[in-house]
Each structure stands twice: as structure tokens, then as C-alpha cells.
């Protein structure tokens, strides 16, 4: 089966600044792919390009076999923005039902999505009265409710308690097991270990694209944090302690 996401030499400029410097990678279907990198490295821009809301300066982004942003992808791709984008003056349930309805889904689907993110007890509450973590889960429910084939999540677990974070990750893996592809950004390295594949991005360049085990092996250390540090240093000096894990290796 074709890959869920294929990027070829993707270039994005913002103003005069180049944010993505020709990124090429492929994410197979049915995996949880982690997009990792420090703040400002271009994670959000890359996700926006995949969803098709980013003006692209060069290269191509192909999603589920179609150019990113194609009209028919709008019912097949779910997107969670970094800042919770739900209506603060509606309840959690009203938000979920609205986004469900946009995707042609019913009330039962909305209620299931709310339960999946652990907000069942707060379903009748106005989003504006929720805590930050609850609000971002309400936003997550609205991204899951359309049962998309590709789910793009920009830092979905920030501010969540550890138990809930573990629950969300197991939910992500359940979805992947059912054939859904997830692209999840994070800057927390302990989440990297939970991904099936890792994309490490720094200053708009991809410096690793592999499984967590392969990344560890390439760097020669067991700690992912340390492995990333070595890959970053290697990419900066241009020397190849991590030749196998750099660029488009798979």
C-alpha cells in the first residue's frame, strides 16, 4: 500500500526566512510517527504543510496518495492545532457534535470521541471554564471525531497528567493498529520512545527518520535523548557517526 505521507524536497519560506529546507521523508500507513524537535524547529510548519493549510515554496507533499490540501482529503485528514481551537462559548459536547456533523457523523460518535479523551464527566461544561489540559483534550476530541485516515496532532499531550498521557498514547496505538496513521509532534523525549517511527527535525532540516531502535543503534547509545544529541552534533560537523540514521535512511 502507498505511504500515508510522502514529502519530496519540501521547502517553506515565511517572509524572508526559510523555515523548511527541502525535507524528504515517507510515513507508512498504520503507524504512530513522532515528529520531534526543539521549539521553532519547523514542526508546526511541516504539519501545516501535510494538512494543506501552509503555502509551500517548493517540493511536494503527498497525503494518502493525493496532493496535500486536496478537497477530498478534508474528510480523510484530522488536524489538531497546537493552541486548542474549539469554541470557548460552547460546551465540550456541543463542540464535538458540531465537528462530528461537519464530517457527517452523529451524536454517538461525538460522545465516543469525548469519552476517548477522558472528558465524559465534563461533557456538559463550557470549554471556556475548563483547565488548559482539558481544553486541549476537548480540541483533540474534535480532531478524532471524524474518524480520519490520517490524524495530525500538534503537541497533543502538553499539560496532561501522566496517567492520562499514557491513556492517550495507548489510544493512538489502538488507532494505528486499526490502520489509521498518526503524525504526532512532541518535544518530550520520553514520548519519542512510544512512537513506531521518529522524524527528528532541527532548524528546518530532517536529521533522523527511522524507528526508535534504529536511531539508538545508529547513535550507539540506549538513551534517545543522548542519541538525538549525538545525531545533532554529527549533522552539524557533517561527519558521520550516525550516517545510517541521517537524511532519508529507512
Amino acid at each position, binding site marked *: 500500500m502507498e505511504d500515508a505521507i510522502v514529502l519530496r524536497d519540501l521547502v517553506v519560506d515565511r517572509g524572508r526566512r526559510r523555515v523548511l529546507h527541502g525535507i524528504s521523508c515517507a510515513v507508512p500507513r498504520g503507524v504512530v510517527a513522532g515528529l520531534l524537535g526543539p521549539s521553532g524547529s519547523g514542526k508546526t510548519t511541516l504539519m501545516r504543510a501535510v494538512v494543506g493549510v501552509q503555502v509551500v515554496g517548493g517540493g511536494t507533499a503527498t497525503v494518502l496518495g493525493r496532493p496535500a490540501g486536496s478537497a477530498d482529503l478534508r474528510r480523510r485528514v484530522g488536524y489538531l492545532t497546537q493552541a486548542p481551537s474549539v469554541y470557548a462559548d460552547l460546551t465540550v459536547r456541543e463542540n464535538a457534535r458540531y465537528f462530528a456533523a*461537519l464530517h457527517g457523523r452523529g451524536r454517538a460518535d461525538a460522545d465516543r470521541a469525548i469519552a476517548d479523551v477522558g472528558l465524559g464527566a465534563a461533557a456538559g461544561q463550557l470549554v471556556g471554564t475548563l483547565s488548559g489540559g482539558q481544553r486541549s483534550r476537548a480540541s483533540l476530541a474534535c480532531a478524532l471525531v471524524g474518524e480520519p485516515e490520517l490524524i495530525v496532532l500538534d503537541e497533543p499531550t502538553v499539560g496532561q497528567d501522566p496517567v492520562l498521557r499514557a491513556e492517550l498514547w495507548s489510544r493512538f496505538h489502538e488507532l494505528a493498529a486499526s490502520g489509521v496513521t498518526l503524525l504526532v509532534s512532541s518535544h518530550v523525549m520520553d514520548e519519542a520512545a512510544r512512537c513506531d517511527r521518529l522524524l527528528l527535525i532541527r532548524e528546518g532540516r530532517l536529521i533522523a527518520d527511522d524507528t526508535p531502535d534504529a536511531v539508538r543503534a545508529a547513535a550507539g547509545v540506549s538513551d534517545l535523548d543522548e542519541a538525538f544529541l549525538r545525531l545533532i552534533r554529527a549533522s552539524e560537523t557533517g561527519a558521520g557517526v550516525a550516517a545510517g540514521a541521517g537524511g532519508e535512511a529507512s
Partner: protein
Amino acid sequence: MNPRILAVTTGRILRQLRHDRRTVALLLVVPALLLTLVYYMYADQPARSGEVSTFDRIALVMLGFFPFIVMFLVTSIAMLRERTTGTLERLLTTPLAKADLLFGYGIAFGLAGAVQAAVASALAYWLFDLDTAGGSGFVIMIAALNAVLAVALGLFCSAFARTEFQAVQFMPVVVAPQLLLCGLFVPRDEMAGWLQAISDVLPLSYAVEALQEVGAHAEPTGTMWRDVAVVAGAAVLALVLAAATLRRRSG
């Protein structure tokens, strides 16, 4: 455009409004208070025989003003929120069409404007003895149309504001000249030629003329229908312009 998506979007916008009880109360009470003020301002001024009383003349036009001013502000802020909170970007990644969103706002706030106009009209007719030759239904229809026009202008103008402060500043820019030149303060045919020319291209002038036609004639006149068509056309034009400001891709 998809009728189901349009319907759920309209419902969502009305639900947001319903949760904001204070705004709903203000929408309904403020016109009543202002009409009361105007009524007592002119209560002691005797009407010259054969002429429409000053209160009737002003109140009729005010009934058209309220939804226009209020819905412009409400829409500008609502749409700005959609842009700044990221809900607009998210909506544009779903199967929702731009027209679903724009017409959803037009219908939802158009309805809100119609309710506002109906309440204010009921008060004006029953409590303050407003007298119009034509039916009150036409007054409410024209007021509701003003609301739709204001929504369309608000949707368009919100694209040029980055903050709420900027958005409310568009009110004096867009609304005030239309109020001043609509013919309430100085009859349009007594204005200087260049003012008349400006007044001729401002849609509210036609809405006010339509209301005055309802005030003066028992049956709807051709002029009134022409004016209604002009206002509706201006609303559609503003919606098309607003659609052009919605971009699925941004930098």
C-alpha cells in the same frame, strides 16, 4: 455549499449566542431604552398638521439602524475570534465550504437581527404609538435585511483587523458615514451634490428610503422593492468579497 453543513453551522453560531445571556439581553433591551429616550425627547414637540411627527420619523429609521449597528459589531468580533483562536483554520481543513460559514453567519445573525427588530418594533407600535401607513411586517423585513447587510460587511471588515481594538474601530469607519448620509439628518435631495453622490453608493441610504416608503404608503411601492433589492445586492456583494478574504492556505 452543503445544506446540512450550513444548517449545523447556523445552529452552532446561534448556540454560541444563546450561551451568552448578557449579550442577548443587551441586544433586546438597549433598542427599547433608546426608543424610550427618543420618545420623551420629542414628546412635547407638537406635530404640525398634515406632517409626520418627529418621533415617528426618527423611530422608524432607528428600527432599521439597531440591527445594522449591532450585527456589524457582533459579526466583526465573532469572525475575528474565529481567525485568532484557530477555529477558522481548523474549519477550513474540514469538508465545510466557505459559503457554508459565511451564509451560516448571515442566517444566524440575520435571525438575531430580525428578533431584535421585532421586539423593538412591537414596543414602538404598541407603547409609543408609532404610526406607519404600511404594515409593520415590512419594517421588520427591512430591518432584518439591514442585519444581513451588516453581517456581510462585518465578515469582510474582520479580515482587515488583527485585534478586537482594530475591529471595533471599523464601526465608525463603515457605519457612521452611512448613518450621517442616509437622509435622516438632512434629506438627501437637500444635500450638496457630492454628498448626494456618496449617499447614493451607500447601501443604508436605500434601506432608509425603503423604510420611509413603508411609513408613507399603505401598499408596498415599486421604490421600496427596488431599494430592498439594492440592499440585498449589496449584502451579496459584501459576502462575495468576504469569501475572497478566506484563504485555506496561509503563509
